């Protein structure tokens, strides 16, 4: 599976799962695609991280740009960061990315464990 195709799959599944599951669904999406990809751990982490980073950061950025709400600045300040909503967009993306990446890595490992001969 091509890297960017994998990323798009994770994004799509994460988006669908989050319609009815809480935020940790992004890790689940990473795990599902990670299992199916049959690729290595590190590559899966990168794909999972990239996918959810983009999903969350772009979603957050869209909200920031469309609403001009003062809340992102305020939340950044509450979290003791510089009061800047754009910074919080990155933090949001990074945080989701970690969840997605760890999930994808775990998915790949399950595949490896259950069917070790087929990898690579």
């Amino acid at each position, binding site marked *: 599976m091509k890297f960017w195709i994998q990323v798009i799959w994770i994004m799509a599944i994460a988006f669908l799962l989050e319609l009815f599951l809480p935020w940790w669904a992004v890790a689940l999406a990473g795990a599902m695609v990670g299992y199916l990809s049959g690729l290595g751990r590190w590559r899966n982490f990168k794909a999972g991280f990239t996918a959810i980073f983009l999903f969350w950061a772009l*979603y957050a950025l869209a909200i920031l740009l469309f609403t001009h709400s003062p809340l992102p600045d305020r939340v950044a300040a509450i979290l003791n960061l510089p009061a800047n909503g754009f910074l919080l967009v990155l933090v949001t993306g990074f945080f989701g990315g970690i*969840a997605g990446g760890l999930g994808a890595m775990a998915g790949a490992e399950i595949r490896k*464990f259950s069917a070790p001969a087929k990898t690579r």
Partner: protein
Amino acid sequence: MRFIRLVLLLALPILFCVTFNSKRGILPPFGKLLDPVAGFWQNCVGENHVPGSGGSLQGLKSAATLVYDERHVPHIFAQNDEDLYFLQGYATARDRLFQMDLQTRAAAGRLSEIIDNPAVLRNDRMMRRQGMMEGAESTIRAMRADPQTTLAVEAYTRGVNAWIEELCTKSLPFEYKLLNFRPEPWTELKCGLLLKLMSRDLTGHTTDMERTNAHLLLGDSLFAQLFPTNPLDGSPIVPSGTDYAFDPVKIDTPSTFRPLELLPSLYYPEIDPHNGSNNWAVSGKKTKSGHPILSNDPHLGLRMPSLWYEIQLHGGTHNCYGASLPGAPGIIIGFNEKIAWGVTNASRDVLDWYHIEFQDANRNAYKYNGDWRKTQKKVEEIKLADGSIYYDTVIYTHHGPVVYDRNFGQEGWPGNIAMRWAAHDSSNEALTFLLLNRAQNYDDYRKAISHFTCPGQNFIFAAQDGDVAITQQGRFPVKWPGQGSYIMDGSQPLHEWQAYIPFAQNPTTRNPERGFVSSANQYPADSAYPYNQAGRYEHFRNRRINTELEKMNGITPTDMMTFQNDNYNLKAADYLPVMLRYLDRKKLSPAQQALIADLEKWNFVNDAEQTAPAVWEEWWDATRQAICKDELGSPTHPAEWPESYVLGNILLSQPNHAIIDDKTTPEVEDATAILHRALDTAEFYLAEWKQENAGKEWKWFEYNNVTVQHLLRLAPLGHDHLYMGGNASIVNATRKNTGASWRMVVELGPEVKAWGVYPGGPSGNPGSKHYDSYVAQWAAGQYNELHLYRSAEGAKNAGKTIHEFQPN
């Protein structure tokens, strides 16, 4: 090996998700919070957004309309009272649910459920030990006994719950996401708790322990001079010279009474003594238009979201507008098409304390009238954030709950003190407001306020037909001199509240000769009034207001708005010139000469840019300290200090008074010596302030630092260093965290016109532009025009968002 790796790699994402799905200490649940799909990002809304939508609404009886105007103020048009209060609850919850939830949890002593903190637990215990829940329950019983309040509180509760049911994880208010909890159903009891919280804010300030200690530390003679029972000067609410031609209620007075014993420092949550208010109404003969004008500004804690929620209620048969309390049906301060009304705090003492002697360590009985009376015990279960339960036993006497005992107050102190508080008594204050909302004339006003017992208020009134009036209303106990000013003896029937002043004998005045009525938390009547008026009274605002109103003629609403923002510092004008005269100029250092020069050219106005007000504050405060600390500064037995006006008058007229001398030094100090010492202290603290504030000048707005703080005390959700003047004891009574929480001016012409503003915004959502939309405007002394639309059509033409509702 492979297995271990699998377990490890599986554990990582699970651990990550579990960790960040819940709150860790003070850290929020990061995953839930940051998730753009359901976390805080969903609370970011654009300028035109209003929560929810119109459509069919379960619980509504007939079609109704809710119009949000350009400022996001809701205007409700319903065909009957039930739908009106249903929609009031619904609309208020849309904007202010978290605030309503948090305030009522606080009143019920339940904050520990969501916040893990020992100070919060202590506060929860205090709320329970002072019987807030019992007070709320008795309020609800009284509401239930009246059909009008029953209907209103039931409908309001259903309305709040209708909104709560529409919420999902995504649409939860921001603070729930931050603290990781969910709203629980609203109840009628919560309406009662909210009203008790107001009672506590307005009658909860107590100095009885501190006054007991002050009396015992000073001795009878010095105490009598420093704590006069009748205010020395000032201008009572009911003009002097009023004839009180009635037979006062007589009570029995004990033959001797002295406070019993020195008390240790007992924990009591601070209730800002600067909570207060101004109101005045000028009659048509003093106004330009010939119509009466009413003004009111309650000074309370400045919070985000604001204590007040502006709303119009049109219920088919009546139509009113004003400031409501989120959590209570009706409007508290406002106007309708015929009249306007407002309140200030009566500040009378309706909270007393009694020493209790238990029969033995089992505490099943206490001494009363030469016999033993049975106690009742209530075990309070306080749920903590970690799921465990904290148990606290509270003992009840016929006076009230024993707040301080071996379990609470001061470790190792053997005493027991019970609380007698008017807020525990059954009463239906909500009825007063529902009736005022509908009142058409003076008689309706008098009838409406007759239901009001606690917290005692100065109800001001003005009507289109020309009447202006004010009444100090509440149920006030008749007290003998000194009764309830100290900790009393709970075994003596004569120490109890024996009778109440009849409503008809409460101080009141209608259309007085001087052409205006006013109040600013001063004492209600002059010494001709045949009752003890014990309370905590303000001595400067009332004199400034009455002097200026006396002079004014051809008054316009704009004049009244300007006067609500008046920054003249009467306290400084009273005392500073004499203090300056006492100084020995040769003794001043160059730095002190600069401070004094600043004070000498000061016009006594606390404007934002002035530096003199900060110098005055520091010098005055240091003077009080230098005079009182030697006699009344005991750290083990905290004592009350004399009021500023008493100290000021002593400084003016008796510079060698015994209280002025510092007893800790061998020499005898007079006013001059003390004032020089105080100036040294002031100089030191001002220099320190400058150092802590990056070398800035102590301009008044920088020094006063008016702050509107979020309920959770999160600085990024509040505003500080607002550019404005004012201070306590000034008409614009804005001081640090307290101030004019709602300013309103109403002109009662053929078409009622009104203006108002509060430090906050209609929305409780910090992600909305309407969260703090009035803060800057309020600080600048500007007002919004308030629109009382006669019909839904009128509102719809002018409104911005229209929600039409149909019954389901």
